[in-house]
């Protein structure tokens, strides 16, 4: 057990030196482009920042799509000469009656794989919609897969818009990723106050230009509030233009009245449409509605043909900037809800790093001295292994660019405490062997050999815990699982390769010796 071939020694020490090098990189300040700029990333709990989990509320999209579906269905039935009556949308279900007992014909068309209103998904081998027919009453609703597809597509759109909005704010290296079918995870390192971003993400930013219905003519209109909820107006449901037609929006100071406004430009098609609509409605009021709240409702004095316009509300410069940002980045397909938020201030992060470092050093020294006290010279072997173990562990964490969290630091300290266990198992075994075996070489040899199964079993059990924690844990706890798991592997490596090689020097020095 104590003999190493030259090649093996080379590989062992090469690995150690390589990993020490990577460990050392953490203390250098290399520029980003260099290959050797690898570093252990600090988690949000250590560097400060915000973590947000958003959920797409898909109910409005489902209803919107079903409304469209009703229109398409009418057309579809008409084209295929199927008579129907009483078509209604209720509880996310479309209901209608077939008149002439032609349900077979309907089903045949509805389940045709090339039909236009009930998509067939080859990858799921399923249809977009489920249908149920009872006594000529047809009920249609989204199938499981139809809902999944709908959610995924609105998630993709939302993700794009969220990314644009956050990029516009200009935060430091944000992480924006999908989580499951309807969630978006956002990490904003270094962000102290997520309030502005939360506000920006909380708005769907659905902008519409609609006429104000004057007088008694309120048919086809709805009652909407102004933003401050003080006044309300009847607004036509017919949308002249929406935010999609905007190509630019910027905050500006209106010199005439000395107020902050948002200037915007329409795209070409939008400009034409807007020109026509304003030309034929001079004298009427035009409402600018954002997320069902009226921002302003100015009177149209003349046709606006330039394709540009101005929104003046009760803006501060900040709110005008944010409105312009929202208009530029586009509307979310569905409202987003913040279902989890974790924010750590930078000073707490710094305190945590300090506390983690101090407890690591103290724990490390305590263990080192205890081992020296317990095992004297053998303790030196254990202590050297422990030091190498720590360096190698940080080296591995650097190579895999792991994220170090506060529980992760705890995992490293715990590794320090538990890593010596392997050496303890071996040393105890060596001492036992040494009782009946005066040859130190023999005692070490059998000691290492016989302790092996216990060392492996003992470490694998902890490794199992770490793996489960890695897959089921979230955020900082995942960081703990990583350091604990990697720590076990580096422990086995240093104890069985580096420590064992150190032992061979010890054995050469004391050939026949009674260990106390």
């Amino acid at each position, binding site marked *: 057990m104590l003999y190493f071939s030259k090649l093996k020694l080379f590989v062992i020490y090469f690995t150690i030196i390589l990993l020490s090098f990577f460990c050392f990189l953490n203390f250098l300040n290399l520029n980003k482009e260099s290959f050797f700029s690898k570093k252990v990333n600090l988690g949000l709990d250590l560097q400060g920042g915000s973590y947000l989990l958003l959920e797409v509320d898909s109910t409005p999209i489902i209803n919107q799509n079903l409304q469209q579906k009703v229109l398409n269905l009418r057309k579809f039935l008409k084209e295929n000469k199927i008579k129907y009556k009483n078509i209604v949308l209720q509880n996310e279900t479309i209901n209608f009656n077939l008149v002439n007992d032609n349900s077979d014909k309907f089903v045949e068309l509805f389940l045709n794989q090339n039909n236009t209103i009930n998509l067939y998904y080859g990858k799921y081998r399923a249809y977009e919609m489920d249908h149920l027919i009872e006594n000529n009453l047809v009920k249609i609703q989204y199938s499981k897969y139809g809902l999944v597809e709908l959610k995924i597509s609105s998630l993709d759109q939302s993700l794009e818009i969220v990314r644009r909005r956050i990029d516009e704010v200009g935060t430091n290296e944000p992480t924006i990723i999908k989580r499951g079918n309807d969630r978006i995870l956002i990490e904003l390192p270094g962000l102290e*106050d997520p309030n502005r971003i939360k506000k920006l993400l909380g708005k769907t930013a659905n902008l519409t230009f609609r006429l104000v219905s004057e007088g008694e003519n309120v048919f086809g209109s709805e009652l909407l509030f102004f933003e401050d909820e003080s006044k309300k107006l009847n607004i036509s449901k017919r949308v002249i233009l929406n935010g999609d037609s905007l190509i630019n929006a910027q905050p500006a100071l209106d010199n005439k009245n000395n107020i902050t406004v948002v200037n915007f430009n329409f795209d070409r098609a939008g400009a034409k449409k807007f020109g026509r609509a304003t030309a034929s409605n001079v004298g009427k009021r035009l409402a600018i509605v954002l997320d069902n709240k009226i921002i302003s409702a100015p009177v149209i004095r003349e046709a606006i043909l330039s394709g540009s316009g101005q929104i003046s509300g009760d803006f501060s410069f900040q709110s005008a900037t944010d409105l312009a940002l929202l208009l530029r980045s586009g509307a979310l397909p569905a409202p987003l809800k913040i279902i989890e938020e974790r924010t750590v201030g930078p000073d707490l992060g710094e305190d945590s790093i300090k506390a983690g470092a101090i407890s690591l050093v*103290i724990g490390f020294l305590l263990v080192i001295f205890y081992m020296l006290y317990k095992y004297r010279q053998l303790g030196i072997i254990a202590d050297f292994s422990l030091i190498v173990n720590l360096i190698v562990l940080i080296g591995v964490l650097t190579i895999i660019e792991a994220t170090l969290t506060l*529980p992760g630091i705890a995992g490293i300290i715990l590794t320090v405490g538990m890593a010596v266990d392997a050496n303890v198992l071996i040393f105890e075994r060596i001492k036992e062997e040494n009782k009946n075996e005066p040859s130190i070489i023999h005692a070490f040899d059998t000691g290492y050999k016989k302790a092996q199964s216990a060392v492996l079993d003992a470490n694998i059990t902890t490794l199992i815990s770490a793996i489960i924690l890695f897959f089921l844990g979230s955020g900082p706890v995942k960081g703990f699982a990583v350091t*604990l798991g990697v720590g076990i592997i580096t422990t086995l490596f240093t104890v069985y390769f580096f420590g064992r090689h150190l032992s061979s020097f010890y054995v050469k020095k004391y050939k026949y010796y009674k260990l106390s």
Partner: protein
Amino acid sequence: MKKIFNFTKYYKKFNVASLILIFLSLLLLMFKGLNFGVDFKGGTLIEIRSENNTVNIAQIRQSFNKMKLGEVNVKKFGKENDYLVKIQLRESNNPDFISEINQKLSADLGSSINFRRVENVGPKVSGELLRAGLLAVFLSLAAMLFYIWIRFEWQFSLAAIAAIVHDVIITVGLFSFFSYEINLSIVAALLTIVGYSMNDTVVIFDRIRENLRKYTKIPISEISNTSTNETLSRTIITSVTTLLALFSIYFFGGEILKGFSFAMIVGVVIGTYSSIFVATPILNYTNVDSKAVLKTDV
């Protein structure tokens, strides 16, 4: 020659003690329950630091009472001017929720208030986290059961799992008794305890199996006692080094890691105790003999 300590003599007494502790823990869990943190119950947690030394906890409580946020829990957190506030209510529709609290609090206390940490967890997420946490604990138990069953015989597996379940129940029972908060890091601690306790038990079992193979005529009770003695100094030294590391986290690692390191310290102590006084006697009661371990060739 070291003195052989007769553990067998104490098995009965300690088994009764363990059973009582488990029973009490279960009673506590049933009637007192656990103090779940925002991770598992949902709600808002804010770590506050005031710039002003004259601010006291009563003023903070009063200010929160005025805001009418429902159940609010304020406690000191580490240093002089640091407090931890838990609010049951969670306002998801108002993005200004947190900044409004900050403004009102600063105005009431007449001092600038620094929110060092804010955690806001919705009911859906907290439910999922709780389920994932429970799943993690059960999965790790199952994985251990499976691992030991593969490496050893079923008798060993049974005894080892009984010991871990014993450790987890008593640790959680202690958390209920002291009303300490259960959050994500406590679940991490529980899983590590499962791993550690198993580690400790496996080392003794490994020796028992070895001795069972060596001495086919000696009864299990005697073999396990010798094996426990042979591995005793390792058991103690490893517990000591692990505890040294854990105490270092507990005293110097900052307030956030206190709960985690407390759970681990308790778990290591109970885990060490259970390998000697729970797992080993249960293995004895199964009457495992040399035949059982000789047929396998691990």
